């Protein structure tokens, strides 16, 4: 098992596309790191560069302290699970899993032991004699994982491995992969565009956009302290509300003034916002930090706003309200027992301790 380090890595394709820009990243030994971002953000390219399937244009990649820029994929001691599984269609499940070991000249009984052990862990023992086309998507997925774990490599690379599975199976495989990580104590780098996969499985999340790493941090850090508007909007569902507003000095401290409401900044954030008094910022608050006043514990005039309900979306465990406040639309995730009705006014309470503020120019987080 090993540490993976990327230092100032760039990837420019021959057609001029700059897929990855100055990526710096350290994946610690035994860490489950997720590269997360929308499609085309460079996360898969980054993974493929670590695998050795893409040459890097600039920078260095180290695995276990050794620079691997010019090392062939087969000599990097990594295993990769592909989105479409990439099983060898003409080989049985057993042969698929044994192929890598055979090429590495492992003794026959060792190969057999490892393949059967991996098959047992993944629950595919009865499938060993089948060909990939006789397997379901979930089973193929397991074989692909099995092919990776028999080799016992330093690093596992996963390229959106769950995206071809149906929703139910995805949830199941998610927890299985997490268990597997505990069991193998492996270094895993996992690419996905699904924030739920990232949040649930990762020790560390790397958020990318347009080839640039936006933020690196644990799931809680990324959620609670997003580095910029992109990260704030990408993580969380429904997405964070962003409202153009101005910081003003008013009754007893600083206030956020938007087109349709005015709320008070908690004392502890005043220092950070001191430079922005009378300037425009982007105020952010997550739907889950907005409450129907009827159910709110701490409703005060200075954190309560009034708007008009546009849409009510009951989800069972909670209800989403789309509310127009002045010129802005805000989404609130409120108690399902809410009495909110379309076209009726509603009072909403902001949990201002969970507020966010972003610089309008740089889009970076102020708080």
């Amino acid at each position, binding site marked *: 098992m090993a540490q993976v380090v990327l230092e100032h890595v760039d990837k420019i394709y021959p057609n001029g596309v700059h897929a990855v820009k100055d990526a710096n990243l350290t994946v610690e030994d035994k860490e489950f790191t997720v590269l997360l971002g929308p499609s085309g953000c460079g996360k898969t390219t980054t993974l493929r560069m670590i695998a050795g*399937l893409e040459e890097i244009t600039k920078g260095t990649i180290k695995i276990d302290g050794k620079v691997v820029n010019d090392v062939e994929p087969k000599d990097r001691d990594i295993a990769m699970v592909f989105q479409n599984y990439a099983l060898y269609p003409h080989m049985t499940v057993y042969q698929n899993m044994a192929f890598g070991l055979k090429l590495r000249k492992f003794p026959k009984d060792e190969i057999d032991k490892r393949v059967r052990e991996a098959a047992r862990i993944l629950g595919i023992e009865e499938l060993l004699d089948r060909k*990939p086309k006789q397997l379901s998507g979930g089973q193929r997925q397991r074989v692909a994982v099995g092919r990776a774990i028999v080799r016992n490599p330093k690093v596992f690379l996963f390229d959106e491995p769950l995206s071809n599975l149906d929703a139910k199976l995805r949830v199941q495989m998610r927890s299985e992969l997490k268990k597997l990580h505990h069991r193998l104590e492996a270094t895993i780098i996992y690419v996905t565009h699904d924030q739920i996969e990232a949040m649930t499985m990762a020790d560390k999340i790397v958020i990318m956009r347009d080839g640039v790493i936006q933020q690196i941090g644990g799931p809680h850090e990324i959620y609670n302290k997003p580095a910029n508007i992109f990260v704030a909007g990408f993580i969380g569902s429904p997405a964070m509300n962003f409202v153009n507003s101005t910081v003003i000095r008013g009754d007893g401290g600083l206030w956020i003034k938007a087109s349709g409401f005015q709320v008070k900044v908690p004392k502890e954030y005043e220092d950070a916002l001191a430079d922005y008094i009378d300037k425009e910022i982007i105020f952010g608050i997550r739907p889950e930090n907005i409450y129907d006043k009827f159910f709110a514990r701490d409703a005060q005039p200075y954190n309560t706003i009034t708007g008009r309900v546009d849409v009510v979306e009951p989800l069972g465990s909670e209800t989403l309200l789309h509310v127009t406040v002045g010129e802005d639309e805000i989404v609130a995730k409120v108690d399902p027992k809410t009495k909110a009705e379309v076209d009726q006014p509603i009072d909403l309470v902001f949990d201002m301790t969970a507020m966010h503020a972003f610089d309008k120019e740089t889009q970076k987080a102020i708080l």
Partner: protein
Amino acid sequence: MKKRKILKIIRITVMWLVALVWILPFLGVFMTAIRPMDEILDGWWNFKVFNPTLENFSKAWTHPTASLAKGTVNSLIVAIPATVIPLLIATMAGYGFSRYDFPSKKLTFVLIILTLALPQQMIAVPVFQLLNAFGLVDRYLGLILIHSAWGIPWITFFMRNFFSTIPRNIEEAARIDGASDFLVFFRIIFPLALPGIASAAALQFTWVWSDFFLALITIYSPEKLLATQRIPLMRGVYHVDWGLLAAGAIMVMIVPLLVYAVLQKQYVKGMVGWSLK
């Protein structure tokens, strides 16, 4: 509903008509081959007297001056290497074109495609002179080389297209598993490409087997003549034994049909392209 039914009937009728037009001449040849001369003089479709016989076949097979037995052997001597050699070269070339980047790749490929447009008649004289210069006229090696050269471009084109239906990820997985380029090709790609290779083999073999023109300009010693060259020789100067000619033609046709029958399953897959399903 009714309209759909009528359309279906029209469609099936047209299909049958086309099939009939296609199969009728063959049926004529077949009937001519299995009936004695005097029965077919009034037309093979005349069934007042019908005494089928295999005599024409045995006569053609053991014909004194143009024996098809010898012709079949000669044709195989040419057709087998003239199928294997271009397949071997063009499969690898097709793989290269589908997977690797190299300078002037596009130009090279366009040049290869251009040669597909060359009519054989145009190259007859230069090819003959070339063979003559190398002392390969009237030798099978010369003909095999021409057929190979003629087959390589289209097989390269065909195989390149086939390879591009195989997902690259499979190769990448093999590469990570520890396979070199060589092993990737022979352990992964080659087995997956078998349907494509089988299709190309069937087509190339048929082409070489039924070729008359190239054989005519390169092979002329009577004992070396190929099967296709022997059929016209069965025509007498004063008398044409249609039954004999028809039997000879059928026997020559049967070989490619056998090849198709053997490779049929792979052939269909090859035409559809690769898939995991």
